[in-house]
């Protein structure tokens, strides 16, 4: 929806008053947990981000302020159903950006007074950590006052049953690389949805080389038709939450499918690699 109503000769006829029903909004973890303290080796949460009854919202970005590293797990509550938005906890720096470079969600996440987001933080810093999460969104207020907005809300509702943002990390979580041995790690797509891969993020102690292979077809993501088996530099394939690497075209992995990560240290020594694949889950059945 455009904010200004323009005439062909360049005049501005008006400011679209329907924009008054929209409000840019930043939702934080509920008070008094606006700043979440996560003690050493403790998982804190779930903590909710709750909207009041003023209307639905679309969450479009995540940002944070932190004093140390954590892993994050997101869940969505919809009525009595709580469903995860990821297969395992992911490194915070692959999911939450900074205030001026927030992480753009692969798809907007619809929330309202009946659907809320839960977040869980797991300390991996070795010292007590404080995290302040901020989710950027826009709210649609006064929904009932405007039939077209009501239709928009319905559409958002229905879309949510079919598709929602989702993140995958390797089945075993963090990948610990030692020496310069090549490791093979898998990511198993859930049996309840297809996964459309859109973004690649990783955080590591040191440089690594990697290849991503579709285990159904044996095709690599890089130079697939040539049957390439070479690993590529990890920093050319993975961004982080501030600047995720966005695939030029999304790649669909079907329900139950496995993705193989061939990964190798580029330097000697131990290297902890946290990989996060961002995209959207496309449900293979209606939620209700």
């Amino acid at each position: 929806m455009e904010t200004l109503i323009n005439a062909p000769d360049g005049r501005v006829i008006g400011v679209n008053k329907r924009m008054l029903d929209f409000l840019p909004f930043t939702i934080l973890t509920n008070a008094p947990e606006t700043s979440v303290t996560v003690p050493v080796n403790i998982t804190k949460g779930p903590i909710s981000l709750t909207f009041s009854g003023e209307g639905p919202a679309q969450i479009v970005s995540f940002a944070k302020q932190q004093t140390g590293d954590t892993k994050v797990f997101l869940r969505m509550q919809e009525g009595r159903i709580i469903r995860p938005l990821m297969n395992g906890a992911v490194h915070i720096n692959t999911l939450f950006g900074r205030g001026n470079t927030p992480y753009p969600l692969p798809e907007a996440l619809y929330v309202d007074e009946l659907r809320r987001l839960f977040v869980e933080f797991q300390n991996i810093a070795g010292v007590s950590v404080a995290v302040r999460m901020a989710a950027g969104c826009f709210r649609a207020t006064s929904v009932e006052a405007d039939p077209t907005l009501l239709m928009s809300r319905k559409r958002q509702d229905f879309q949510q049953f079919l598709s929602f943002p989702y993140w995958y990390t390797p089945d075993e979580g963090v990948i610990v690389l030692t020496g310069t041995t090549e490791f093979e790690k898998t990511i198993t797509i859930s049996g309840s949805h297809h996964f459309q891969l859109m973004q690649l993020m990783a955080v590591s102690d040191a440089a690594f080389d990697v290849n991503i292979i579709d285990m159904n077809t044996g095709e690599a993501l890089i130079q697939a038709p040539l049957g390439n088996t070479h690993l590529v530099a990890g920093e050319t394939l993975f961004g982080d939450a501030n600047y995720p690497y966005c695939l030029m075209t999304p790649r669909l992995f079907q329900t139950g499918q496995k993705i193989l990560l061939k990964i190798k240290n580029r330097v000697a020594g131990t290297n902890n690699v946290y990989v996060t694949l961002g995209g959207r889950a496309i449900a293979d059945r209606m939620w209700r």
Partner: protein
Amino acid sequence: MDRRAIDKYIRFDKASGKFLPDESRRYILPFHAFFDLSDVAGVYALPGSATPAQLVCWKQPYSSINGMDANLGTPLQIKSLLISDSTNYDTADYLVELNELGESRKFMNKPVHVRTIFGTAKYPGTLCEPYMFSSQHQIQMQFTNLSVTGRSVRPYLSGAQYYPWAAQSAKSRDALASVIKRWNMRRGQVWPFWLTTEEPISLAANAEANFEMLPGQDAQFIARFMTAVSTGNFEYSLLEVKTQQSLTNGRATFTNTLGDARLPKRLSKDYVVPAGYRLRLTVKDLSGATNNIYFTIAGKKVYAPLNDSAEAGCDTRALDLTQE
């Protein structure tokens, strides 16, 4: 635009059956405008200790070699603000105020911090609305240095200069004139605006206070970016006083929601603040020391009523000049 056009610069020419550059677009050129050199000798010297520096002006000349400019002169469409500081950008610490003199237009309600509106070549300080700086107009600028030591700066207006008189064919001249005339209509109603607090913010350690931000009674304000510069971290909330709508459900912080002009926080949707409404900023120091905070909301002022597209009978998307 013709569906067969490659873009607005390369279009399909029916007569020749070829793709040809749109001649009129060749006379819109990238441009950096430095302020009038008769004011100071190339570099803007700022005295220290909060002394307002000399006023300087950008003057847009009326150049038209052959007179075929349809009285449009050579306007500059300003799209971003750039600055070079004698030390470095991150230590640039001065307030800036911009005014258009001829039309008595204020671009901000109060002086704002330079790093909340000016950027660098890598990350320019982008205007929320391009501003058509017409020939024979002047934009006045004044810096006030906040640090004790003096420094020298080079500020630039960056954008596109239109040369309507330079086109070879009458068709191109007419096309260019048409675009400029439409922008001239628009500039009468819409221009970039930066909103900051009415009073400067200086908090004692861990102190909390409220500050008013008044966009004014004269026009609707449409906010798009939020920026801040401060001497320490802080938490804040923003509330529209009349409707009691808050833009957060708690206190956000500088670190998790804001940036400076180079990478500002972009609002997820344009925020329309109707004329006469006011915003209240509540800030609290988190640094444990005296904290000077410069908070700026970048947007545009629109002199048009609140309306809706059905009432106005217009397709808003098809006619958006900024998309051309």
